[in-house]
């Protein structure tokens, strides 16, 4: 409750939450909101292709003669599914690895962190490109690749938190009382890192959404689903020379809308749950690099 009150006092956070709520609402109620069902075939003539907006088609028609607005509305579903699922995967793996590495330390910890360091050196987008091209473009492949490559920062974040938490009184006491490691981790350590992990996960959702749209734009999206990146792929290949802005701009701004919403929320959550950090952790240089390009980070000596 206290946290909620704090959150509501931050205008950026409130704006972000409202923006996200709108998108979730649109995604959930897509069949009722969309004027047409984009999955139903329509008989078209050459003149219907990329027809500009009119009273019947508020955002005009796409390169297959279908309503752009309806696809935009349905596209929210794919973005949100990919974003939330992939980010949940990253969160799960990252937290587990971070907890284990931080709590047990020693050889396992070092080994796990070396794997993390190694994965950070491999450029993400190129690797995703290769894997998707080979594995096929199903929605689950895309989610898997984004989720499996995106957990390294969470792992590092959790580990550094655990390192300090495990030296604290209540943990030491629980241990002296003979509590098992599993119990200590689940009962005492995990709740402490949870808020941080969630703030991080919200930011990861937007990273995942941007990654999905980049892949789809490069022609590696799931062809059976309507997603914003996919719409832009069609628009870029077939609508650009027509200057069909009604097909080019809406999906792009939809991506901006949802990722901006998530950044505003994640940002605000961070400010609330993470007051101990020296600087705001979204603004940490390594963090920024990580966010923007899904890129490698180095360890700061100060961290150790």
């Amino acid at each position: 409750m206290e946290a909620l009150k704090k959150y509501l006092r931050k205008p950026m956070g409130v704006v972000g939450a409202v923006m996200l709520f709108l998108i979730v609402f649109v995604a959930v109620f897509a069949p009722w909101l969309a004027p047409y069902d984009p999955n139903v075939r329509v008989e078209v003539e050459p003149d219907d292709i990329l027809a500009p907006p009119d009273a019947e088609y508020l955002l005009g028609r796409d390169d297959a003669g279908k309503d752009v607005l309806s696809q935009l509305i349905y596209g929210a579903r794919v973005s949100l599914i990919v974003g939330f699922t992939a980010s949940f995967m990253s969160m799960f793996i990252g937290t587990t690895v971070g907890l284990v590495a931080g709590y047990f330390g020693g050889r396992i910890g070092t080994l796990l962190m070396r794997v993390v360091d190694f994965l950070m050196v491999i450029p993400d987008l190129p690797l995703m490109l290769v894997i998707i091209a080979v594995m096929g473009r199903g929605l689950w492949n895309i989610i898997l690749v984004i989720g499996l490559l995106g957990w390294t920062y969470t792992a590092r974040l959790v580990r550094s938190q655990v390192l300090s938490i495990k030296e604290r009184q209540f943990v030491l006491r629980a241990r002296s009382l003979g509590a098992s490691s599993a119990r200590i981790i689940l009962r005492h350590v995990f709740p402490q890192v949870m808020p941080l992990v969630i703030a991080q996960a919200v930011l990861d959702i937007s990273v995942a959404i941007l990654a999905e749209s980049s892949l789809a734009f490069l022609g590696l999206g799931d062809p059976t689903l309507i997603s914003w990146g996919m719409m832009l792929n069609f628009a870029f290949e077939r609508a650009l020379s027509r200057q069909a802005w009604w097909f080019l701009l809406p999906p792009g701004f939809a991506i901006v809308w949802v990722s901006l919403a998530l950044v505003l929320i994640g940002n605000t959550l961070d400010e609330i749950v993470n007051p101990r950090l020296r600087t705001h952790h979204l603004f940490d240089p390594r963090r920024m690099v990580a966010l923007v390009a899904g890129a490698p980070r180095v360890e700061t000596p100060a961290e150790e």
Partner: protein
Amino acid sequence: MKRRNYVLRKVVFAFFTLLAVLVFNFFLFRVLPGDPVRLIIHSPRMTREAQERIRIQFGLDRPVWFDAEALREGDLARAVDTQFTAYVRNLLRGNLGISFASRRDVSDMLVERAWRTVVLVLGGDVIAIVFGMALGLIAAWRRGTRLDTTILLAALFSWALPTFFLGIILLILARGHLPVGGMATPGLKPEDGLTYWLDVGKHLILPTLTMGIVYTSEYILIMRSGVMEVLAEDYILTAKAKGLSTLRVLRDHALKNAMLPMVTMIALTFGYTVGGAIQVETVFSWPGLGRLMYEAVEKRDYPVLQGIFLLLAVSVILANLLADLLYAVLDPRVKGN
């Protein structure tokens, strides 16, 4: 002592990461499905003998890791004469193999393409650093004002903007005013001197601007938080109390300290912007590494992909090492302890 240890540790780590990357790189492109011979041969009409010749030419007639049969026969030299040892041997000689698709030397292709991407990334970085620093500084200086909020929001907005989408917007806006694709007007050559380079510069504007705008947001955020943090420190408050003007304080103290994360950031960006470069190069037909990589993915040109991955990984490792070493030089905490 501590510092020397630190540096040594970083160098050793970089070395081992490099080794791991070498093995991973080889492994990744062998587990991918598809018969490489099929991929080399565009013509399904090629005879079996011709295919065999090509298999030998590309070293694909040898086993991948280990020749167990030769070992049983006691021929140790032959047992280790595998695709992997050939890969390592070739690497040591700087030979990255031959492209499946174009049958050209991969190292030649990389050299040809890499500098173009470097130019693009450098140009984008210069814009991002200059504007990012300036705006970040202003935001921190005017902290809490409407100007600060505007800059912050603009930074978050451009952060949320997909690189390729920004590129498309600029492409639409610049129609008819700037070249929309390619690197230079065909026929112009470097030998043409200034005309050529001005022409390249013209072609560079849009892609560089795209890279620049996308990465400006990061620099704004880092600069802003860095300066703000310094401004909150005690010695700054003391300096202010002594009557020094805010500008003076910023110049003499804040900037100096905020420079540390900046330097790291700059060193780091060179290694990783290729993700963005793939998108920018696709939108603007810029014939750099990113596009080569994209084409290689489409054509399953494994040697080229392998080469690019290696180049990227090595540059990231080196940039990381450089950033670590810079930290050692600049950060008093590493120095002092």
